[in-house]
């Protein structure tokens, strides 16, 4: 970690010159956090199965001087082109807007450096508000080094009915750490859906995607947020999503890992007022050499709210999966209804799943439960299908797809749901490069 602190100290002026004031204002405190906090060791409380030191060990470069990369690599083709005619792109950590973005009136999707001009005051008010006490050292590192980011702002009462798609691409001629920052603000009564796709275009290089996403939902705001990682074995991802919900708001977060190297996702959702609904869903499919770790906290800090959480993993070969989920209910929060589930399939004796459900409840009159299972494919079901002439391989694929079907079905955007069904099938049938070669003619 020290090498990145050194980068900051050496290039402080260059970093600040490139960045809006709100980003610079947050750096001192982030630096203090980094200087006082040690990198958590593998096996420590929040990192039982993931070695953070190892993730950051390669000497990643940081694009301090904002060297321009091609906006979108010519070979690149996203899996979800039907979803949004005009997606936004982030190449490494640089934002590119399309010519003809289709947004509802008043909706802004822009680079943070343009935020003051496009929607004055929003960045100052919300940037780093949740991340400042986000706790994790990786969030502080992001705050220290981030030079730009994406702001999505949906003003009061506006329904942005078309999904906002952000395609994130890692593509550089060097070992690179992309420092990505996203801020999503939905004012009272606003509605939107956001899809983030993570890709690695040039998989011959090693990358680290260090990401922080902050989400603020005003009263009665409704957001669906999907993030899909379809990167490469050479890609590391350390992402923290921090969300805050005000009264009556509704949030769906859907975390999908289809292909990756080593991934650590943190989700913390603060439910700060009554009548909120929160859904946190996750799907991870991992095979040889892949590692997926999801760490979640549903923070019930108000009465009469409902949360539902379900993460499913399918692990093959020597894949490693980890899930730690906490439901916290603060004192004085009657009427909270919270469920957490984690279901895992180990398709190989070498696959490892670590699961740690936690309930921490300080109010009597609540309904909270959890369930965690680790199992194998049902042998009787496999034989039944074989008896009908389905090969063992195809039977295994069908059962794995079936295992993930409730997560796929829970996607509320029809185009994404169908696309995801197709991608999951391709993933289980061993097709590589899901996105780059995919066609829509199926």
């Amino acid at each position, binding site marked *: 970690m020290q090498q990145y602190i050194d980068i900051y100290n050496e290039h402080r002026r260059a970093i600040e010159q490139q960045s809006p004031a709100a980003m610079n204002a947050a750096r001192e405190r982030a630096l203090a956090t980094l200087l006082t906090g040690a990198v958590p060791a593998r096996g420590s409380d929040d990192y039982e199965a993931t070695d953070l030191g190892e993730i950051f060990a390669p000497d990643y470069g940081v694009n301090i001087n904002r060297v321009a990369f091609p906006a979108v690599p010519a070979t690149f083709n996203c899996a979800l082109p039907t979803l949004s005619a005009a997606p936004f792109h982030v190449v490494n950590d640089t934002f590119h807007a399309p010519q003809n973005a289709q947004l509802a009136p008043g909706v802004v999707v822009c680079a943070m450096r343009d935020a003051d001009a496009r929607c004055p005051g929003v960045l100052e008010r919300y940037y780093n508000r949740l991340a400042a006490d986000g706790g994790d050292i990786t969030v502080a590192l992001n705050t220290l080094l981030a030079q730009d980011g994406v702001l999505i702002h949906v003003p009061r009462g506006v329904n942005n009915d078309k999904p906002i798609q952000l395609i994130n691409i890692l593509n550089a001629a060097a070992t690179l750490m992309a420092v990505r920052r996203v801020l999503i603000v939905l004012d009272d009564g606003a509605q939107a859906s956001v899809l983030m796709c993570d890709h690695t275009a040039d998989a011959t290089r090693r990358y680290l995607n260090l990401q922080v996403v902050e989400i603020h939902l005003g009263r009665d705001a409704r957001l669906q947020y999907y993030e899909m990682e379809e990167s490469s074995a050479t890609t590391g991802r350390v992402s923290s999503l921090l969300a805050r919900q005000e009264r009556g708001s509704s949030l769906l977060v859907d975390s999908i890992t289809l292909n990756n190297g080593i991934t650590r996702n943190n989700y913390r959702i603060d439910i700060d007022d009554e009548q909120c609904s929160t859904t946190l869903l996750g799907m991870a499919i991992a095979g040889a050499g892949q590692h997926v770790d999801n760490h979640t906290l549903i923070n019930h800090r108000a009465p009469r709210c409902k949360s539902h959480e379900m993460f499913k993993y399918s692990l093959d070969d020597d894949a490693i999966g980890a899930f730690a989920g906490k439901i916290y209910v603060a004192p004085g929060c009657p009427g909270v209804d919270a469920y957490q589930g984690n279901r895992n399939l180990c398709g190989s004796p070498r696959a490892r799943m670590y699961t740690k459900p936690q309930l921490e409840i300080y109010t009597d009159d609540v309904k909270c439960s959890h369930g965690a299972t680790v199992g194998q494919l*049902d*042998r*009787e*079901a496999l*034989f*039944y*299908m*074989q*008896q*009908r*002439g*389905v*090969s*063992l391989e*195809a039977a295994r694929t*069908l*059962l794995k*797809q*079936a*295992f993930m*079907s*409730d997560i796929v079905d829970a996607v509320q955007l029809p185009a994404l749901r169908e696309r995801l069904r197709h991608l999951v099938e391709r993933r289980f049938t061993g097709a590589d490069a899901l996105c780059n070669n995919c066609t829509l003619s199926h």
Partner: protein
Amino acid sequence: MLKIKDLHASIEGKEILKGVDLEVNAGEVHAIMGPNGSGKSTLSAVLTGHPAYTVTGGSVSFNGKDLLALSPEDRAHEGLFLSFQYPVEIPGVSMVNFMRTAVNEKRRYHGEEPLSAADFLKLMREKRAIVQLDNKLAARSVNEGFSGGEKKRNEIFQMAMLEPKLSILDETDSGLDIDALRIVAEGVNTLKRADNATIVITHYQRLLDYIKPDVVHVLYKGRIVKTGGPELALELEEKGYDWLKDND
């Protein structure tokens, strides 16, 4: 069609089949009866290749092929079908997807092109009618939430879809009310042809009122101890199995 010679099989080290001999020819219906634990379901599991069972001796030839050397799916492709005593529920796998995969894998095995979507759906419609299986059931996940009768009808529906040469019906009458039993039996009789054969495994005479066997065998302690005509089933119904044990 099927020639079983001195078949021995065990599960977890315990020998269940202790030398079964059986021959089934095209066009025939055989009934295998016997008390609980005599090895009836083991015989069907071993013939279809269930991985939990180990064959420890003997041979099985099916239309001239060494059946025991084939994988379970290839046995199915060669025309062997088992109607399960307890059909497995498979949540999340639709009947349509399951059957399309099964039918097309069989076609591929025999060097045929996969069915077009339209032809496949037409085939589904035709075969559903044979056992009066509701379209809604065909659209659901395999056996999920089906009643006992619906599950058994679904087995016969799949049998109709796959047109096997030899069908083994394992306790197909268990858990069926009289109407469902009639529908299932009529389905089986409709599918009967001169070039296919059926083995009916059952406890009771009841099913044999509907599916008339040509030959009746009694399996007891892992061996076929008696073989006769349809009248043997009636005799068993009347006397129970105890008189066989006395002959031990």
